[in-house]
């Protein structure tokens, strides 16, 4: 079931929560709506569900205009952030509820419910009430309830926010596994970029109700369309520097010193029209230098985070804070002076005014 949004707009009084959004979600794919709080991702999800009526634009399910169709009739399954399980019903009755509403005969309904419970892994919890389950178990009941009526699309509104870190990873893998097993078109809303990166077929990055970029996870990471996209994806976040062209020489402007940079020829050419720009350097594009490189950053270590697999450093250089990743065994300490070299093949350049990538 392909979902297509055409100029979808949602206004609440003075605020435009969703602004002329037009995208197509291909059948069978898991698309994540990603963005900071208030960017309109949950609102868009609710519009697709039919719980909100749009101020403008249309929604199509496989070329059928469903903009005016009530949620009860849209044949969708939805998982809410706080699960919204019916507290007065047992787990089994929770899962049976949508089937009951669609008047599925009792025997068949029971069979389907048990099949679904097995799929999500809760078949021995059927007699319990939601209050007797842990967060992860409640989440799986919610998923089972959403899928039991074999909907055409599955909507998930930040389903993992209320789970602890380890459970979050396990559950998102489960969701991906189930989604691929059934092949259902899925829309997943989250503000966690790592979640989005790990399970999506495509990511829709949103800000202030507008689409910033819609592409595969690796695409958004390697070729972000604008500064916002580059900053949002990637942990630790990208380092951004000012760049200016001074007498034809491209320099990185750090708050105290000005430093000369050496950039590869093809970048020099594309920067020909720009006198001011941003440089985005991901932490993994910085590495320790032994001083023999043509260009290096000199700074003092202010923070060392050893996270096991690698070590993150925060370095103060020229008045700015820079983050980099170095191999975990390296002997570095706070207050050390170090030199960093930049891998210019990985650097991203952004227009100073618009933030668009050059």
């Amino acid at each position, binding site marked *: 079931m392909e979902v297509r949004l055409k100029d979808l707009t949602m206004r609440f009084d003075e605020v435009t929560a969703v602004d002329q959004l037009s995208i197509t979600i291909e059948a069978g794919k898991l698309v994540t709506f990603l963005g900071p709080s208030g960017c309109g991702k949950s609102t868009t999800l609710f519009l697709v569900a039919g719980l909100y009526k749009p101020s403008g634009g249309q929604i199509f399910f496989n070329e059928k205009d469903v903009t005016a169709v009530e*949620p*009860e009739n849209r044949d*969708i399954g939805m998982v*809410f952030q706080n699960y919204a399980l*019916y*507290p*007065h019903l047992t787990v089994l009755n929770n899962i049976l509820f949508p089937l009951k509403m669609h008047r599925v005969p009792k025997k068949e309904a029971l069979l389907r419910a048990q099949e679904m419970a097995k799929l999500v892994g809760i078949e021995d919890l059927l007699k319990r009430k939601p209050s007797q389950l842990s967060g992860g178990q409640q989440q799986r009941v919610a998923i089972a*309830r959403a899928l039991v009526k074999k909907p055409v699309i599955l909507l998930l509104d930040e389903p993992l926010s209320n789970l602890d870190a380890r459970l979050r990873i396990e559950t998102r893998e489960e969701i991906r596994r189930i989604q691929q097993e059934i092949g259902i078109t899925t829309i997943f809303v989250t503000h966690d970029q790592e979640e989005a990166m790990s399970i999506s077929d495509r990511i829709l990055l949103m800000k202030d109700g507008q689409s910033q970029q819609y592409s595969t996870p690796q695409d958004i990471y390697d070729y972000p369309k604008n500064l916002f996209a580059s900053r949002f994806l990637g942990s630790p976040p990208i380092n951004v520097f000012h760049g200016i062209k001074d007498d034809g020489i491209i320099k990185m402007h750090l708050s105290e010193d000005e430093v000369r940079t050496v950039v590869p020829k093809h970048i020099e050419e594309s920067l020909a029209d720009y006198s001011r720009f941003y440089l985005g350097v991901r932490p993994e594009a910085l590495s320790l230098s032994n001083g023999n490189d043509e260009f290096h950053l000199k700074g003092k270590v202010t923070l060392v985070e050893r996270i096991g697999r690698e070590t993150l450093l925060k370095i103060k250089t020229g008045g700015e804070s820079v983050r980099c990743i170095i191999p975990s065994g390296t002997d570095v300490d706070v207050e050390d002076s170090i030199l960093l070299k930049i891998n210019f093949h990985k650097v991203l350049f952004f227009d100073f005014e618009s933030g668009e990538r050059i």
Partner: protein
Amino acid sequence: MEQKATLLSTIRGYLYILPALIILMVFHVYPILKSLDMSFYTSFNFIHNVVYARGLDNFYYIFNDSEFWLALRNTFIFVFGVVPISISISLVIAVMLNSISAFSKLFRSIYFTPFVTSTVAIAMVWRWIYHSRYGVLNNILTYVGFSPVAWVTDPDWAMVSLIILSIWQSLGYNIIIFLAGLQNINKQHYYAAQIDGASSLRRFFHITIPMLSPTIFFVSIMSVISAFKVFEEVYALFDKRPGPLYSCYTIVYYIYDKFANKYQYGIASAAVFVLLIIIMSLTLLQLYIGKRKVYYT
């Protein structure tokens, strides 16, 4: 801050609540105990407040008194007439009020007004509405084509009139309580039910009512207790009489009649005792049902 209770802090605690405790004891607990004691007075000089004998005679009297049984019968009819209908209508109105956003405060005030108005004043107005010749109700009836009804003077209709008045008066309080309960229901449950395919009527029965069950439980207990104690409405609506031909002769009216008109304090107290037992049993019954049926979140 948790501190272990010492003797001194306990005494201080009691001193703090002493004023309220005294008032409660004197004006609530003492009268109840005294009236229960009174129900056993078989020989009592109320002028000099001297008790000569105690026994169960009062109870024998009331159980053999046809008036007592009439009063009980009327009261039960009243309770079963008022409570279910009142709760149902209040619930529906509360649900409707909950779904409108414009003028909600205005409507709430309108519905709550009867509750803060004196029962006597309400009864006076309803006497006029119920007037067989000039009353608004009969005007409407004759306009539509029915024959007029003698609401307040016809013994067959008097109880109905009383029930209508009581339902009308009780709506406000019940609506406000239900509104509070409704607003505590998480909206996401309605969204989930909508997505599961439930129409608004089915959402009402499968989501609203179960999640409102603690509130319904509370309202039901309060309404039953309050309905059993009906007196002011009767007294005011029927001009101090218990309805035409005793058709609205309720148990509290019986009690009032016995002590205020006939000075039979022992008998009145015995009736009070019986009423207490009845109300307590019904409340316990409701609590029992509540344990099984009420879903607390």
